[in-house]
Structures are given as C-alpha cells and as structure tokens.
C-alpha cells in the first residue's frame, strides 16, 4: 500500500494537467487528461513535434555505413560511394541514403563509455545522466512524459519490435508504468484492440450504451475522481479502437512496401511512417542482431541495406509530405564497432568513436559533424557523449533541456546530463 511514484515535470502547463488519477497507466494513457480540456485539443491542431528512433541493437559498424575508410588498415572489402553532398562518402551498402544525404546530418564522433550491451543499451537509451539513485526513463518514455501525446486519442509512445508486444513498462523508469510503451510485437497491436468477430458494431454500441447508462446512475451523488478515471479509460479504448486502421498494414500501397523492403525492419519503418502520419508522438523501431563479432562483412552486407533502404524512403516521404520540419528521425545503436578486424572476421564493440544519423525537426541538412583521426579509430579533438545527443534531441523538440526538470519524490531531476550540452553544429 505504499504510495506509488508520482513524478511530475515542471514544464509546459499544457502537458501537466494530465497525470495521476485522471487516466494513467502504460503509455497508453500518459497525458490523456488533457482530453478533458478543449483548449488542449486546439493546441494539438498545431504542428506537433514527433520522433522516430530507429534502434539497431547490437551496434552497426560505422565502417560499413556512415564512415567508410577504404584503403586504410581498418577498411573492409566494400567501396565507398559519393553522396548527394559533395565530398561526403558513405559505404556502398548505403546507396539509397547516399541519394538523400543532403537531407540528413551524420555525427561521426560519438564517444561514449560503455562497451557492454547489457549495460550499454539502457545507458545510452536513458541518456546516461548523473547518477541520482533513480532509474531514468528511456528516450521514448521521457519524450512522452515531457510532451504528452501529440494526438489525445493515441498513445504517445509506440514501440515497433520483433517478437512480443503489449504494454511494456520497463522503459519508463521512475516515471512509473503509465509512461511505458505500447509495443507492437512483429508490428501487431495488442489483440484486445480488436472486437471479437461475434460482436457487431451495432451491438457493441448498444452494450456500451447500457454501460454508460449504468455509470450515469452510479454517479448520482458521488463525485469521486475514481469514477472519472474509469470512464475516461473506456473513452480512450473506444477512440483507439475507432482508429485501429492506423495499425492496419493492408492499407499501405504495394509500391511503398517495395520501396521500404519486405524484411521486418523495412516493414516496421513503413509502419512507423503510418503512425507518424496518424499523430503518434514517439515511435521506436527496433532491429536486433547487429552484433557482428564474427563474419562482420557478410553480415553487414545483409543487414546494412535493411536500414539503408527504408530510412532513405522514410526521409523522402516525410519531406514530400512536408513533415520533415517537425519530425525528428534518429538512426543509432548503443555503440559502434572496432577498427580492428578480429580473427573471426568480426568487429567487436567500440564506444570510443562511432557514428549516428539524424534528420528533420531543425537538424541541419547535408552536414557531417566531427573529425576522426587514425583512420577513423579515434575522435580528433573532443567527441560527443550521449548526454550531448539527449540535450540536442530535447532542444530540437522545443524542450529547454538545461532548465526543464522532472520532479520525483520531492527531488528535482535534470532531464539530461547536467554537464553535457546541445550539439550546436548539428542544429539549424
């Protein structure tokens, strides 16, 4: 019966009326209290900032993607190819992205601390803030907390991943379960979003009318917040069910499916586009098995095109739809891979100098950030830590990352590492 986490941020009041009783639980409802306030709905007419994080779990090799070094001691068998940006080359495995290099930024000098997956993945996705004895939220939960839903009928944080889905709370950290993700396992929404075939739409409406009537009667002379909270959870369920077509892959054109690719990552990035268009605030797309300790080159040859093609298609599509001004796309891993090739033709973990890509939402176009030394093995000068990236992401989303605070059990907590700062070079 101990009180539960009731974190509150000190940000825009628009997003702060939600919380606590009126709606809670599992990302699905984070911030939905705003529903009750018509002025907030008007706010949502505005162009909301959105994020698509493409997470390549295990660590994509920078040499076989963003930062090829052909002709050096660390080179692999692949050529480098010119891109749309004069003087900038990518690996030949990135031919589609090379075409749109003028729309994105690449940071080639990420320098982080943790060479292990088990600790590195959470450390990176939490932004590695100063340890204050609490478990920080992953980026998606953080953004869903800080900005709330972009469309009040939709969960703010959706995670598309291979394997199982459901309401996954563990990424929310101290923000509490309600700021977790609605996960689409293999791209599928939770089964309970579907009305069983035996119940027609008409009968569903009729049974819900009975339910509402019963609630109306129960409400007489009772003013409890519990009643509001419970009714609102049904309203949300009805709204999401009414919009379940946003999860329906069959509405996507065959041409798009070909452009994005038929492998899971391609399908899931296409699905992310669909959800961005529908108004979901934050979407993470996970791809696994990028950990190429053995046979790095064959694996990269197979894997890298799987992100190259749909990432390029996504950026093109967002640009064409005029959405790139407000949607941030991030492609990254928990670290890069070693310059040295090991005895199994693999590359091991390398947090000391690695690359990632950003696009949209106030990110410069066609910029390559950071100089490397020793054939790409080390950062030349000062690298960027993950805290710097978090400040950058929050900043382009319109959050004052230096001043905004979470409030947790009476403590005010910085939302990103206190000693880090935005990477100005990558921002417009």
């Amino acid at each position, binding site marked *: 019966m*101990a009180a539960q986490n009731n974190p509150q941020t000190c940000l825009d009041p628009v997003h702060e009326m939600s919380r606590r009783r009126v709606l809670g639980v599992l990302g699905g409802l984070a911030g939905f209290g705003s529903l009750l306030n018509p002025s907030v709905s008007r706010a949502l007419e505005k162009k909301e900032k959105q994020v698509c994080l493409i997470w390549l779990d295990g660590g994509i090799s920078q040499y076989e993607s963003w930062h090829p070094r052909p002709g050096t001691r660390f080179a692999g068998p692949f050529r480098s190819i010119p891109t749309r940006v004069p003087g900038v080359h990518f690996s030949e495995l990135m031919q589609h992205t090379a075409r749109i290099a003028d729309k994105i930024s690449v940071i080639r000098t990420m320098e982080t601390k943790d060479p292990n997956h088990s600790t590195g993945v959470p450390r990176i996705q939490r932004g590695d803030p100063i340890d204050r*004895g609490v478990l920080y939220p992953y980026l998606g939960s953080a953004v869903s907390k800080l900005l709330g839903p972009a469309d009040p009928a939709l969960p703010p944080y959706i995670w598309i991943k291979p394997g199982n889905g459901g309401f996954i709370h563990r990424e929310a950290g101290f923000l509490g379960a309600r700021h977790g993700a609605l996960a689409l396992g293999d791209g599928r929404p939770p089964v309970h979003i579907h009305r069983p075939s035996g119940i027609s739409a008409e009968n569903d409406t009729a049974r819900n009318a009975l339910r509402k*009537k019963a609630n109306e009667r129960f409400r007489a002379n009772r*003013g409890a917040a519990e009643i509001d909270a419970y009714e609102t*959870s049904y309203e949300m369920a009805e709204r999401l069910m009414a919009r379940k077509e946003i999860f329906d892959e069959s509405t996507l054109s065959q041409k798009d499916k070909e452009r994005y690719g038929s492998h899971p990552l391609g399908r899931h990035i296409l699905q992310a586009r669909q959800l961005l268009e529908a108004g979901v605030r934050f979407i993470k797309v996970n791809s696994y098995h990028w950990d190429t300790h053995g046979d790095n080159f064959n694996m990269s040859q197979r894997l890298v095109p799987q992100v190259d093609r749909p990432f390029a298609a996504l950026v093109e599509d967002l640009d064409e739809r005029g959405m790139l001004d407000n949607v941030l796309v991030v492609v990254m891993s928990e670290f890069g891979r070693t310059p040295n090739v090991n005895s199994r033709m693999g590359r091991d973990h390398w947090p000391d100098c690695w690359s990632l890509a950003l696009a949209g939402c106030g990110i410069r176009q066609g910029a390559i950030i950071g100089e490397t030394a020793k054939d790409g093995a080390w950062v030349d000068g000062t690298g960027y830590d993950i805290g710097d990236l978090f400040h950058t992401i929050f900043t382009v989303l319109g959050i004052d990352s230096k001043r905004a605070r979470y409030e947790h059990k009476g403590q*005010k907590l910085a939302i990103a590492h206190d000693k880090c700062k935005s990477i100005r070079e990558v921002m417009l």
Partner: protein
Amino acid sequence: MMFLGMRTTSLLALTLFLAAPRLPAGDGQLTGIIDSHIARLSGGSLSSPSDDAEFFRRIHLDLAGIIPSAGETREFLADASPGKRTVLADRLLGSKDFSVHWADLLSVELLKRQNLGKVQPREWQAFLRRCLEKKPQWNRIVHTMIAATGTGPDRAAMKFLGTGGHHQMTRDIAMLFLGMDLECARCHDHPSVKTWEQADYWGLYAYLNWTRAATNSKDKKEYLVEVLGKSEIEYQSVFESVSDTTGPRLPGLPEKTVPELAKGEEFSSPAANGLPPVPIFLPRKELAADLTSPKNLAFARNSVNRFWARLMGRGIIHPLDQVHPGNAPSHPQLLEEMAGLFISRDYDLKWLLRSILLSDSYQRSSRLSGKSATASPESYRQALPRALTPEQLLHSVLRATGNLEKTRGLKADPTKKFDRKGYFTGTHQELPESYEEIRAVFIQTFGQPPGEPETEFAPGLNQSLFLMNDRLLLSWLQPVDNNLVQRLGAFKTPAEISENLYLEVLSRLPTEAETTDLGLYLEKNGERRTAALGELAWALINSTEFRLNH
C-alpha cells in the same frame, strides 16, 4: 414493488442494529473513538448509513476478497435480527476466505508481486495464511519476517527479505513498517522532507549489512545468515566531502551500542556446513525486536495507518509512505489513540479490523448526503470508493457470471503450454485453460508490474480494452453449465430477470427504472434474447459500480 419492500425492511433492520446493545467492554472502545473523531472533524454533514446490500458487498470484498453470492445477499437482506452486521463481521473474520484473501493482500504489499529469494510462492502464501488464522498479532508476524533465517517451521518467512540485498531491505523496511520512503536519503538528506536525514537511512542499513544469503552444503538450502562485521557504517553525502558514521539506529530513537566482544568470544556457534560462525550479537535480530517493540510508536502508528487505509480507502496520514511532520494526519488524535490501543491489545490484527468494521464511519454510504456536491476525502464523510484488486476482480467476475466453482477447479494440462505473451499479441489463439493461467492473465492486465506498489487506482486503456474484448471473459457470458446467462434465460418476466441479474452482479436489488430499462432492451432485442442477456450482464460487469468497492 418488491424492491421497495425490501429496502424498508433493511432500513428497519439497520435502525435496530444501531440501537443494539453495546459490545462487551473494551471491544467497542476503539469503534466509539473512531466515530467521535470523524464526527468532530467532519466539517459538514455525514452521509447516511449504508443500506444492507451496500454494506454486505463492501465487507465481503474487504474480508473475503469477493462479492457475495446472490443467495447470501438475499438471506442477509431478509434477516431482521438486530446484530446481524456484527455477527457477519465476526463470521467473515474467522473464515478461511479471510486468511486466503489477506494473505494475497499482504503478499502484494510486502513483495510487490516480485518472486524474491528461493522460497516457493506457494510456501510463502501458506506461511501468511497460517499467520492470519485465529488471532494474528501483527508485531509478531513482522518480527518473524525480519528476524527470519530460514530455519524452523516458519522458514518461508525469509521470502520477504529476498536474497538479503542490503539496500533493498533498508528501503522496504523503512517504507512498509515506518511509512518512510527513504530512497532519496541514501545519498543525501531528503531534499523536501526536513526530518528524513541520510543518517536515518544508514542507521537502518547498519542493522542489516551483516546479513548474507548462504547455502548449507549439507541440505543445499539457502539461509539468511549474519556475518560478523563492523559496528559502524561510514557514509558520505553526494553534496559534501565529509563523511559520517552511524551504528544501528531506528529513526527518532537512540543509536544502539554494538557490544565489543573479545576475540574468540564473538560467536555462539562455529562455522558449519559452509555457513559462517554465528555471532552472539545479531543486528538484524535486534532490528526485528527494536522495530516491533511497544517503545517504537512509529511502528504501531504506521501499522494502524495502513490497515485503516485498507478498509477506509485512505490513510489518516496520506500518502502512506510520507509519514513525517510535514505531512499532517487528517485526524491526529484518532491516529495516536488507535496506535496506543493497538499496542495495548498486543497488536491484535483482527481486533483492529473489527473495531473499524463496526464503526459508523466504515458503514457509511458512498453517496454524499443532502445537497453537498463534494466532500474532501480526508473528512471520511462518505465511504470512499476503492478499485478492486486484480484478484478481487477476477473472483468477482467469476462469481457474478456463474463460473466460479468450475474455473477455480481448472488444473493446468502439463502437455499444453499456454503462451501468455502470445495471448496478448494474438499469436496464441487458445484461451487459458487453467485457473493459475487465468489468474496470471488478470494480474498482468490489472496489476502493477513487479516491483511497483499497487496503491492508486489508475485504470488503463489496456484494462478497458480487455474488459471490452477479451474472448475468455466474453466466453463466461455464453450460456453454458447453468451459469448466469443460462439461468437468466429461464426466467420469463423482466422483473425476475432484473432482480436476479442485479443480485448476482451488483449484489443489490434493481431500481424500478433499471428494471424498466432492462425490459425495454429485451423487448427491442426479442429475436436475439440470449445475446441481449449477455450484453446486459456485460454492461454491469463493465460498470464503474462493479469495478469499485464502494
């Protein structure tokens, strides 16, 4: 018309009850104290007493963890004897259902649905049930858990301490038994609660840091042992560079002196079977005694506050883990007197619960009285609604739909594997077939994730989607095996159907308006009568009235 008659009878019974002879001296003392304090500080009109049906449902959910059956409700409503509420409270407090349900409640509170340590959940539940039978003394139960080593008949009690992680034990004990959420105080004095100092955290920690989990090489079982260590702990604030030290100390009490024993004389028994020698001075055992001692008023105060909140929907100090001077109790005198009497009654848990249950304050209606549109919850002017726990909800849905006995008996088929994750994503089509799996499905949907306390009612989208569309739940509304919907189908008139439906699901008689509406719905759906009956039952199962203990 029948409904009106019943209500008059129950009101009459209630009047008689209120005028009933006083309870034996001493037993009713706290009950009177509660009511006088609540009335004194009410700040407005108190709600009228609950009617018999409202009371009957509430006390069943609170003590037995399930709504009453329609038959039991009918019988209680018809019973005209004046002391029937007291008789009922005593019967339920002595029932097996009570120890089963309260073992669930305590387990969720203590372990937060984590499977800690190596003791099997089944043994742990059995331990808690044993504790709750007959005359449970709360200080003894807590003492047993904190001093647990894994030896003797209460071996399972060690599950509370898990694998003996020092920080986890410190946090949990401070929160559960002192109402202090000291998480922040591990690294510095609490930023907003002035009285919670880093020294409080480390003083408690100093009682616990000799504890280790160790395996006996002979019987291969795990035990929680204490290994001779330092008598003082050194700690440092993250904000300052000076360190400080403390020995074992409870917040607000003096530091304990760890006896300095001569070398060779520190142990009561030597190392054996891979277990270390047993020190004569055992700090954790000392903690169990110091914490639960009558001298530690904070323990008694926190205990009554938590049990009160269980039955009344809110702590006198609220939130429950914010027990400090900056968070004033709503009824300070009541809390002090209740804590004092609890100590003088040897921490008799059932006495405490009974005293609350028999009060007018517990037995008030959840409707506000007269014209008042709102009443602050801390006034307790009306009964506060509480969400059903996942277990209460499952059992109540099963009983309401007439599937309880059948479902409770369902055993897992070892040749089949139910893929729960797949069930929620739609890749596993088969419904769960065993009671254990069905229970797990409900806990996953309606409970908090392991490690998070279940306190606030925060109904989620996933819960509503489940109640609307879950195939298993909907299958319980198909007319089979003489369940609710099948039985309703046998009645002819809307009045009969309505009376039975409302008694079975909402544990009360319907109003005339409700019966009229039901009749209209059936008339409109005359050609699909069975489906319509299922929809009527579904609507009540999904109603706020059902979802809350009100």
